[in-house]
């Protein structure tokens, strides 16, 4: 899922302090799971903002809505009838949701309420780690299910590099060397001979190197 982290409230206040009718728009998907922008976080932010403005002697209208997703037209339509009542929206969705909301509602300024971080997994409550960089050409079949693109600091395809020490990466002793993990995994699977095969040059045009990307599925389009 997409992992996001909460933006400091003071940063959000700085952006929206001049508005009088604010809609806090939560998202019920990834940001709910990583406890950054779901219904609960939206309620907390709305309550904190209401109190902040009251404390400044201003009665600012702050309402809350949680959409199932902000990255789909259907769900964004749910606020079509009420959006004109507000002079700004704080979206607690990931960067995709914020942008999609902004595209749908041109005349209302949208502000992000979270920092979108990466594609990752919940290791335990309160700890999320990166697992995918959406390079567009998955290599996991050859690496025992461990991604060298997202988990190796250098994104190398024929590792490890000389900076791997006792299974850890040279950039940070707390980070596992992805290639050490791959070798250990291939050994455990009895596939270590595959490690000997060199990876060919990777086509990075499907990664960010090729500019903004899109997936076109003509079989699904009418």
């Amino acid at each position, binding site marked *: 899922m997409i992992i996001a982290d909460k933006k400091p409230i003071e940063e959000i206040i700085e952006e929206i302090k001049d508005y009088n009718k604010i809609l806090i728009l939560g998202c019920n998907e990834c940001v709910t799971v990583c406890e950054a922008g779901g219904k609960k976080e939206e309620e907390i932010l709305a309550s904190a903002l209401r*109190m902040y403005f*009251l404390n400044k002697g201003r*009665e600012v209208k702050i309402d809350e809505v949680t959409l199932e997703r902000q990255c789909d037209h259907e769900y964004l339509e749910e606020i079509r009838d009420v959006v004109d009542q507000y002079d700004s929206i704080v979206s607690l969705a990931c960067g995709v949701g914020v942008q999609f909301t902004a595209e749908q509602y041109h005349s209302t300024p949208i502000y992000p309420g979270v920092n979108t971080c990466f594609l990752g997994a919940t290791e335990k409550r309160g700890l999320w780690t990166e697992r995918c960089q959406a390079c567009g050409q998955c290599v996991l079949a050859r690496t025992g299910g461990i991604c060298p693109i997202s988990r190796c600091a250098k994104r190398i395809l024929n590792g490890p590099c000389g900076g791997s020490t006792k299974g850890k990466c040279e950039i940070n002793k707390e980070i596992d060397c992805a290639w050490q993990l791959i070798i250990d995994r291939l050994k455990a699977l009895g596939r270590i001979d595959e490690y000997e095969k060199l990876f060919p040059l990777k086509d990075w045009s499907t990664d960010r190197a090729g500019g903004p990307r899109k997936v076109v599925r003509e079989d699904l389009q009418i």
Partner: protein
Amino acid sequence: MRLQYPANIKIIRVPCTGKVDIMYILRAFEKGADGIYLVGCMEGECHFKNGNLRARKRVEEAQKILNTIGIGGERAQMYNLSSAEGTLFAQIAVEMTERIRKIGPNPIKLAKKKIAA
């Protein structure tokens, strides 16, 4: 025991302090409470393993938010005691009341009154 403690404290019973969300704390202040405190079981003795530890973290988080918005984080506190410590419960009630008296009333309550007037 028939212990006395300040009458201005309203007790809200929850199954475990782990039930108390940051939102509950903020809502209390939004509704005009001058202070809140959670009284949980002793650390390490939670019937639900770590409800009281979660509660402490949430109080700390609520304190940060209250400080940021100018309400004052010290208005929210977490205490731990066992169910056999009635005397301590009364002491904490007195301590908390005095703490809040010193800080003064909740500015949100005053602001709401001012706007309504």
